[in-house]
């Protein structure tokens, strides 16, 4: 089976695998959705709750600490700053983990390490808003094909689960993706459920615990899914939902319950009475209620235009905002509607056809959304894409050109940098090379949109986390230690 070359998706939806090897496998990969550009709030703390609700509890807090770092001047480069500019013969000055300045003729203070880019390119660290690293960890096994850590399949509403709790930090794919320049990733549950659970934003640093990777202060997300995956996952077992209309009924019923739960808790908070017994907690409804309080971002796996249009109305019906549709292969059909609803889309460059709901995929999808004034990001879903994200942008640029739309590279890099940063509400910290932002930087051997280019140096918060020319800065996972298959035969 050629198809057995699983990347995660393959395994994620065993229900579909047996008879339909092709799309089947993919059906779940296509797993999720997150991210978006709606800018409702800058951070959880900034969200005013009308009902005196406290800030969202953070029981598994980040323990991230930047790796050892030194001040650096990266020079002799073409710089894509992530906000639309191409700076020639330029560089970036980093101090204490932050970007100090960007431009030409930068002066490095005493003690600053100088990195000569040798005429290569410099970009912000790439941000992948749709990853399953760690919760669809490699190596995949036949056990994973039966029961995996990416989908909780006991109920179509699994809003109570957190991707954070599935993440295997020693997944060797984290390092592969780091080599591809990805410094920030949003890890999501899969798409087999209507409500898949919470996603989490990680810094792509080598670590021992997932808390050491958690992006401090980043908002969690709620993964929801449209279409075939929930319908088949449960419908084929004779359970609810077994149709697309069942899917929508499932979302609505859950939001009705969340609305009632929120009302109970709002009433409790409003009384300010410490002697009053609080209402009973419910993990599913806590997550959904936090969405209604704008404390959690909704990312929604949807392919078809008609489904996305319905979901934007469901969001209005219950008073929440969809941050982004993920996959969104038919986004190009409804660009004005997406704009009107302030919903971003995160898409692949060229995935199409592997399932019925992906049949209308086009390579200009991202470019058409962009040209129509919408917000777009490129995401990976699978590791093979995350290792080469700029090539997906290149593919889109080429296809768009042939369709009559010219997109510059310095603009297209925004699909991988500032747009996902905004979608995660982290754009004050990451997503562009601007003074004051975190020093997440990638030095490329050449134009990152060329297949022949590779990342030379990857920097997170001012620390070199990968250096192609320094074996001491090429982290591997514990899994890879002591593996005879990896060592060179004598």
């Amino acid at each position, binding site marked *: *089976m050629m198809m057995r070359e699983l*990347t995660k*998706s393959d395994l994620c939806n065993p229900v579909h695998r047996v008879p*339909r090897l092709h*799309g089947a496998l993919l059906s779940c990969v296509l797993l999720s959705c997150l991210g978006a550009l709606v800018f409702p709030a800058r951070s959880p703390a900034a969200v005013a709750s009308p009902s005196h609700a406290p800030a969202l509890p953070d029981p598994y807090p980040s323990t991230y600490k930047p790796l050892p770092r030194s001040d650096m001047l990266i020079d002799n480069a073409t710089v894509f700053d992530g906000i639309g500019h191409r700076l020639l013969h330029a560089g970036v000055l980093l101090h204490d983990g932050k970007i100090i300045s960007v431009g030409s003729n930068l002066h490095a203070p005493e003690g600053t390490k100088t990195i000569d880019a040798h005429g290569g390119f410099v970009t912000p660290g790439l941000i992948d808003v749709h990853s399953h690293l760690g919760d669809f960890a490699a*190596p995949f096994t036949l056990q994973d094909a039966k029961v995996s850590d990416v989908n909780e399949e006991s109920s179509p509403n699994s809003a109570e689960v957190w991707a954070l709790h599935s993440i295997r930090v020693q997944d060797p794919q984290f390092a592969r993706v780091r080599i591809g320049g990805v410094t920030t990733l949003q890890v999501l549950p899969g798409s087999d459920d209507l409500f898949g659970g919470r996603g989490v934003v990680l810094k792509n640093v080598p670590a021992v615990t997932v808390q050491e990777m958690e992006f401090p202060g980043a908002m969690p997300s709620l993964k929801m899914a449209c279409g075939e995956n929930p319908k088949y996952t449960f419908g084929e077992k004779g359970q609810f939902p077994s149709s697309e209309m069942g899917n929508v009924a499932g979302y609505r019923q859950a939001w009705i319950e969340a609305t009632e739960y929120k009302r109970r808790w709002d009433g409790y908070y409003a009384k300010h009475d410490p002697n009053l017994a609080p209402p009973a907690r419910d993990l599913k409804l806590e997550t959904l209620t936090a969405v209604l309080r704008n404390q959690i971002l909704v990312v929604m796996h949807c392919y078809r235009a008609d489904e996305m249009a319905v979901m934007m109305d469901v969001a209005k019906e219950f008073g929440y905002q969809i941050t982004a549709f993920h996959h969104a292969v038919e986004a190009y059909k409804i660009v004005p509607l997406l704009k009107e609803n302030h919903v971003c889309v995160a898409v692949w460059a060229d995935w199409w056809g592997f399932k019925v709901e992906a049949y209308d995929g086009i390579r200009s999808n991202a470019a058409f959304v962009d040209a129509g004034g919408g917000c777009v990001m490129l995401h990976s879903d699978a590791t093979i894409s995350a290792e*080469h994200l700029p090539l997906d942008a290149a593919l889109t640029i080429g296809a768009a050109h042939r369709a009559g739309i010219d997109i510059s590279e310095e603009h297209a890099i925004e699909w991988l940098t500032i747009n996902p940063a905004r979608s995660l509400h982290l754009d004050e910290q990451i997503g562009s090379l601007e003074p004051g932002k975190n020093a997440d930087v990638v030095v490329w051997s050449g134009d990152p949109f060329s*297949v022949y280019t590779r990342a030379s140096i990857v920097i997170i918060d001012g620390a070199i986390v990968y250096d192609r020319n320094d074996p001491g800065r090429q982290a591997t996972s514990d899994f890879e230690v002591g593996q005879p*298959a990896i060592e060179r035969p004598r």
Partner: protein
Amino acid sequence: MKRAWPALPVTLLALSFAIGGAQQSPNPSADSVAIIGAKAYVQPGESPIEDATILVVKGRIQAVGVGLAVPAGMRSIDAKGRMVTPGLMNSASQLGLVETGTPDTSDSAVVTGPFGASFDVQYALNPNSTLLPVARADGLTRVMVVPTGSATPPFDGSGAVLRLSEGSDILDLPQAAVVAEVGGMVVPKSGGSRGAQWMLIRSALDAAQRRMATASSAHKENSDTDKSTLLSTSNIEALVPVLKSKIPLVIVAYRESDLRQAVSLVDDYKIRVVIIGADEGWRVADLLASHKIPVVLNPYASTPATYDQIGARLDNAALLDRAGVVISFKAAFVHVSYNAGIAIREGAGIAVANGLPWPHALKALTVNPAETWGITAHYGTLQPGEDADLVIWDGDPLEPMSAPALVLIRGRQVSLETRQTDLEKRYRPDRAGDSEPPGYR
């Protein structure tokens, strides 16, 4: 800079064909055309000819050279100095067998019933698949189509080479190879150990040997008392061409131990073997080379995706090529069939970024798959006499931004329009304000 094409036989052939061709084709015909101003990669792996003229007559390359006269009346296309390569070939796909991933449009695997090695994909091919134009528009003109599952493990059945011509005539070489699949991810199908997978392959080959011996003797009685599906008459007869070395036995395998088992089949049965997968192939590169085992690999493989692929690395292609293994490419996942062209082009570029010389990457997209699947007599280069599968590129074919400007398959120019480009026209951003629904466009 004009360079003389170094290969003398080409020049001689060119002259002789050019004269004859001009006389035989006085009128423009659909499959006769001259490409002028080409940077022609006549023999992939070798230097191109600058400013070449390529004469295509009746679907075949008739002559290639500098300064060739274009016969009167022949249509002429100016490549304007751009790269012209043979049409590309994907070495393992399910193009023509799959459409939407649903069972009613998926014909690549038989999972119940009597079939094993005898299953033959040729009867399921759909020339009207919407996947085919997409592959053509990415410069793919040939593809090896292999089955992907089995009712009688470890044998999946036989694959076929397709030519991606427009119209119904797409079957290039039926029964081009018999495919067997081993490894951890398919172990349960063979009872629970990969040891059983190899023993089943060997017992089937043994049975086929006995059948050949019986067939050549006076008494044609069936000496096999085992009535299992594995050893059924049809499944065993399907292996006879393998034992006669007429076609290769394909082993889908990734782990070093399985690759070594495949090598031992060559030693023990004197058969031709092709490996699909071989993520750990670099560990046994010399052995694969010395046993003349071609490898079809996924150039994106970089992670220990399964326990069979712990040694996966991006320079696998470069290391195998350096050892002298004939490599060609397949893609993974969605890209196996739905993006069968662009995925192997970009994948070849990734192999180059990880050490494979560019000229060898072009070989791995053309002559190498032709050699692997036994169609060098008519496909793989732009040498006179070969089918005129060629692509004029708007840039470097290994770059994802690039695309074909023109594709000929057996001398016929094919459309670069696809269902996707039709949808793009229908939903162009400047039509967003139209009052009429897109359905009228």
